[in-house]
């Protein structure tokens, strides 16, 4: 492929790709996202490709492995176009049927269709599946049409047209103004206005003419994986956003910092960058505009704090990833002491959309102060786990119950955790809170990068607070005292409470520690570290009090406060629990009721898991 040297050439190339596509009368897109990938979608993809060839359908049927479609609960999934047929939970055994019947003859396979949760009737089209119907997929929608390793797929979907518009029809300042008018706020957590950052970096003076734009793909929040799915599934969307941003800011070099836990993301990204360079969308004189810009990929080493801007930059430089005090903003002195602008993956992905449709149309989605859509990873105790993209301002209730299909296994909703370790737990009474940056902040949580973890009555809120503090204690870099020591003290207190040694005074101490850490920690990690503790005390104080005064964990999680026993009436003496018990704490003869010896029992719960008669009781 020769280099594309003008917008007209890009248009010509796009038409040529579309012309070639006309011969296909059906396309099957198999989801290759993280969820489906873990369920061996690769093998299914190879099998479908082989079966299509063997059935002589290669000329007419296109087989694609694409980025994440979002509905991970139903994976591995496939969508067949042009009909838009949605197949769920495909296995290798289904491949020959799918190829012969659906791809060959257009017949539906009823067993693979998604049953309507209301009436059990199979739903044919993806767009009618309730999980998708209520979403507004502006960023994610392209994923299922794109093989992330093929730039042609992205270009066929209209890709890089926003870049053409930006480079040839707009001045750099106009780009920043447009992003400003669109009201774009950073999707990484804090929701800082993107255009203000860009403006500051544009204004900053670069002594040697070099400025950087960076993409933060160090998605460290546990329970969040939307950045992974965007970058892995549609890398060119992020690249296009970065090139436009770099042109606006006047940057010539870019870095994408990806966490090492995402090897597939890195390899897809490297392929995408290579292809973009080959066709002249990265490198010198992009599209013949005279603008030079190139992107490198930098890989992390598994440190949560490297999601913080200065720590991330230190890590790219090959140094220890510790944050620094920001007396001087990174817009002036960032990476290698040069002016630097850092945005999150999802923020960059919004940029082409804003340039293409204009700020006016973009603003129509979302609320006044939080515009556009937001992708959430809806996980935990919810029926439809997966990635959901919704307009800002939708309520938590709509997301969890209408899209997510409610709590798993008929259990009762207890809380939803947003914002990762910097966020908080939101109770049932506040489920009508709209998801926008300010409303979530007001209820003691935050938007964060978009993790949304649903919890039911089997989750202990004190244990969740302990979990996050333990996590942060482990991830604190140790540079500043309030974070390093404060977290440790908080952990001791929370361990006291979960292990039955807590006192009511400790709750006050926790709040006091939280205040000190918020006011005096060096970086965002420490400043927000107490949020999970404060929000659980605020909304679930009765659970703390239960642990302290009644020595009871109502969720049955805190081991020191629970005991296992066997209900002799229900026990059939099947020996299953006895065999499974790893410490030999269960005694009893065959066909006679068993008993658990409390002094030996380690409370692992395996007996409860293996018992088929519901005879094991946890109290």
């Amino acid at each position, binding site marked *: 492929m020769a280099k594309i040297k003008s917008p007209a050439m890009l248009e010509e190339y796009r038409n040529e790709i579309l012309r070639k596509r006309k011969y296909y009368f059906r396309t099957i897109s198999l989801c290759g996202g*993280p*969820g489906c*990938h*873990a*369920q061996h979608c690769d093998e299914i993809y190879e099998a479908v490709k082989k079966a299509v060839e063997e059935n002589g359908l290669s000329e007419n049927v296109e087989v694609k492995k694409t980025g994440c479609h979002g509905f*991970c*609960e139903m*994976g591995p999934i496939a969508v067949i176009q042009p009909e838009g047929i949605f197949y769920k939970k495909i296995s290798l055994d289904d491949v020959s049927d799918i190829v012969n019947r659906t791809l060959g003859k257009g017949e539906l396979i009823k067993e693979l269709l998604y049953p309507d949760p209301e009436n059990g009737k199979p739903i044919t089209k993806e767009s009618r599946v309730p999980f998708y119907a209520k979403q507004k997929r502006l960023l994610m929608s392209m994923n299922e049409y794109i093989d992330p390793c093929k730039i042609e797929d992205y270009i066929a979907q209209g890709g890089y047209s926003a870049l053409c518009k930006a480079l040839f029809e707009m001045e750099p300042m106009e780009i920043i103004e447009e992003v400003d008018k669109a009201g774009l706020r950073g999707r990484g957590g804090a929701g800082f206005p993107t255009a203000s950052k860009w403006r500051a970096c544009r204004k900053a003076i670069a002594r040697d003419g070099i400025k950087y734009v960076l993409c933060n793909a160090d*998605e*460290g*929040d*546990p*329970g*969040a*994986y939307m950045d*992974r799915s965007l970058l892995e599934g549609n890398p060119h969307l992020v690249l296009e956003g970065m090139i436009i941003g770099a042109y606006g800011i006047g940057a010539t070099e870019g870095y994408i910092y990806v966490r*090492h*836990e*995402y090897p597939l993301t890195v390899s897809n990204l490297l392929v995408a960058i290579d292809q973009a360079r080959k066709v002249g969308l990265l490198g010198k004189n992009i599209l013949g505009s005279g603008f030079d810009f190139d992107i490198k990929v*930098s*890989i*992390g*080493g*598994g*440190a*949560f704090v490297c999601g913080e801007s200065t720590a991330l930059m230190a*890590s*790219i*430089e*090959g*140094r*220890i*990833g*510790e944050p620094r005090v920001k007396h001087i903003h990174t817009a002036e002195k960032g990476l290698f002491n040069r002016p630097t602008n850092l945005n999150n993956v999802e923020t960059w992905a919004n940029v082409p959309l804003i340039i293409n449709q204009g700020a006016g149309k973009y603003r129509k989605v979302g609320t006044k102060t939080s515009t556009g859509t937001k992708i959430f*990873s809806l*996980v*935990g*105790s919810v029926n439809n*786990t*997966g990635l959901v993209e919704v307009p800002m301002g939708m309520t938590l209730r709509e997301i969890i119950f209408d899209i997510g299909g409610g709590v798993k296994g008929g259990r009762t909703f207890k809380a939803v*955790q947003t914002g*990762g370790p910097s966020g908080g737990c939101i109770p049932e009474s506040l489920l009508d809170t709209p998801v926008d940056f300010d409303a979530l902040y007001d209820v003691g949580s935050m938007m964060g990068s978009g*993790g949304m*973890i649903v*919890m039911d009555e*089997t*989750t202990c809120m004190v244990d*969740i607070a302990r*979990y*996050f503090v333990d*996590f942060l204690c*482990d*991830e604190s*870099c140790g540079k500043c005292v309030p974070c390093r020591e404060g977290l440790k003290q908080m952990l001791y207190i929370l361990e006291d409470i979960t292990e039955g040694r807590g006192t009511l005074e400790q709750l006050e101490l926790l709040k006091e520690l939280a205040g000190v850490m918020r006011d005096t920690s060096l970086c965002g990690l420490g400043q927000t570290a107490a949020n999970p503790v404060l929000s659980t005390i605020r909304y679930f104080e009765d659970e703390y009090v239960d642990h302290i005064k009644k020595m009871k964990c109502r969720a049955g999680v805190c081991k020191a406060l629970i005991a296992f026993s066997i209900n002799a009436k229900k026990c059939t003496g099947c020996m299953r629990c006895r065999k499974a018990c*790893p410490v030999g704490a269960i005694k009893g003869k065959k066909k006679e009721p068993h008993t658990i010896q409390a002094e030996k029992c380690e409370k*692992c*719960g*395996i007996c409860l*898991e*293996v018992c088929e008669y519901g005879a094991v009781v946890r109290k």
Partner: protein
Amino acid sequence: MKKDLSPEIKAVEKYGTDRTCLIPILHEVQKEYRYLPEKALRNIAAMLDISLVDVYGVATYFRAFSLEPKGKHLVTCCMGTACHVRNSPGVLEEAKRTLGIDAGETTDDMLFSLETVNCLGACALGPIVVIDNEYHGEMTPAKVKKILKEVEKQEGRG
């Protein structure tokens, strides 16, 4: 010719001698040795012309790197929030008990290393246990015990 070169020389040839290449080089070298031997760290420091303490600092700061040799099979339990609310602590406890080691340790016969990770980004399938790069979703204590016992059996271990 090339196959005689040490992994650190190959890695430096691949990524270059700039300090920004240090983390990728360490990843690459660790892939070969399955840990970072002292000799390799010294060689890398010399080739990148930075002090050993800088290399050591980075190698010990980041969770991904290990200065201790790892076992033949790597068992990683995801401890992310989504996995946590679905009982990943119970799964980890059982993995520890079955293998007879704590998280972060390697068995004496060098067959197994047990590690935890904060999130693998496959949250929909939690709790996740990865054994030698293969993902096992929706784990329970009983299931993880069974899988680990099978691997132990293949290795002819108790």
